[in-house]
């Protein structure tokens, strides 16, 4: 009996990936390709960064992501996922590094006795109560759960793609997703009850 293998990865090499030739050009040193990649993905990446990190850090994260992409584009392997997924994977790595350095800085300042407030959506003018609640709920998640949730539920990547770009087993992605949903629902349900 022949069992049909399901298509697991969205944007796999079987599909036409419009980003692949651009990343290849970038890998061969064509900086115009970086401009093209930026134009195509920067707005969405900026939104992703703003949801994932303190508001003011978003631009730095996007800038660092594109600079890193320009350095490592030659190593891009289309077999491991689409160009877009790879780009978000780099952004997630930048976020993780930034979060760690911020945590170190926070601990250092806390030792000095200063209260550190990291600006988030509530500090951003023009945001409604619901946005603040969602932002706070996201903020309560661990960085790994938050990024996994946002990549799957907001950016629309499959769990397999997220597993590839984050370099974690797919079971870990499922677990993180499950816990992220449960925690978010718990927090946002309380908010709604209030």
């Amino acid at each position, binding site marked *: 009996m022949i069992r049909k293998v399901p298509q697991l990865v969205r944007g796999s090499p079987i599909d036409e990936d419009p980003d692949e030739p651009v990343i290849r050009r970038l890998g061969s040193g064509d900086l115009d390709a*970086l401009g093209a990649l930026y134009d195509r993905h920067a*707005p969405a990446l900026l939104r992703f960064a703003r949801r994932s990190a303190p508001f003011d850090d978003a631009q730095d994260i996007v800038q660092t992501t594109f600079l890193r992409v320009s350095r490592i584009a030659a190593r891009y392997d289309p077999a491991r996922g689409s160009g877009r997924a790879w780009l978000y994977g780099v952004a997630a790595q930048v976020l993780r590094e930034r979060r760690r350095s911020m945590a170190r800085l926070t601990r250092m300042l806390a030792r000095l006795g200063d209260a550190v407030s990291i600006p988030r*959506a509530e500090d951003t003018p023009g*945001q*409604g109560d619901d946005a603040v609640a969602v932002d706070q709920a*996201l903020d309560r998640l661990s960085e790994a759960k938050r990024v996994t949730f946002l990549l799957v*539920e*907001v950016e629309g990547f499959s769990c397999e793609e997220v597993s590839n770009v984050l370099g974690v087993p797919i079971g870990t992605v499922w677990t993180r997703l499950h816990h992220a949903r449960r925690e978010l*629902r718990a927090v946002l349900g309380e908010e709604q009850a209030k």
Partner: protein
Amino acid sequence: MSERCPRIWEVEAIRDGRLRGESRLAHERHRESCEDCRQEAQALAALAERVGRMPTGATDDLGLRRLRQCVLERADAEASGRKRHTRRRIALLGIAAALFAALLIVTTAWIRNAREAPIARVDLVVVATGEPGTRWTRTTESSVERFRLNDGVLSLRVERPAGARRVLVEVPDGEIEDLGTTFRVEVRGGKTARVGVQQGIVRVRLRDGVAIDLKEGESWTREPAQPVLSVEHNAVSTPVEVASAAPSVSQIHSGTGVSRVDAGTAAPAASGPAVGSPEEDAAYLRILELLRAGRRDAAREAARVYLAAYPAGFRRAEVQRVAEDTPR
């Protein structure tokens, strides 16, 4: 409190892609009639939508363009830096490769010199002198100094330090290898007639079975009448029988079989050998042997024969005292 549907977990599993194919279809059929599962699916979708709806600040086109400009400028600067770094690295690699090559060449040359040095440092000195009418050639090879003696008498004086080339004298019927000595080879009629060693050791290897080492003062002579080999022990040996008046032959046992000790005095008388020749040496040694054997009369007689044959011999003074029976 009512129990929730036990299949409610399948909603999340379908959303995450864990449930596919028939299982998914079965659940979707179930969901049509299950309120719990339908609500769960709606709640999960609503959560995603709510988070996705969260405003992330207005996308400022100017800000995006500014960021783009900044990204491209920094990327360009990094690329230039990388190129400079790459060029510097290539230059350093080139220098390192050149140094390595130079080191390799020097090391190779040093090793080669070290290998060749023993030969280069060890100077082989071979002085070959052929008597008039002698036919011989000399060839220098990498490991052998080769002489080919076809006929005549060739004298060689070899100073051969350890590690130097071998010295080989090829004779029509074999070869003689020098082991650092002064020696003399005589070939007559296509055969080695005589090999005499004045100093050092010589190895004689002839096709007719002769394979002997001749030490200082020894010589080997081919018997003219019969192909019996004889070794002349010019040095001290133990005679068994000595003829006093007519110096002829005495038998000894050598390692190679029956050999003869030749007094060597008949030949000088007959043919008048030259002063300083092996025959003269043999005649002198013969006198010494007789003296050691306590046969003073025979020694005196042999001394007279020596003086008659070699009136200008090197040992004339000593032999004269023996002939006159005067103690030293």
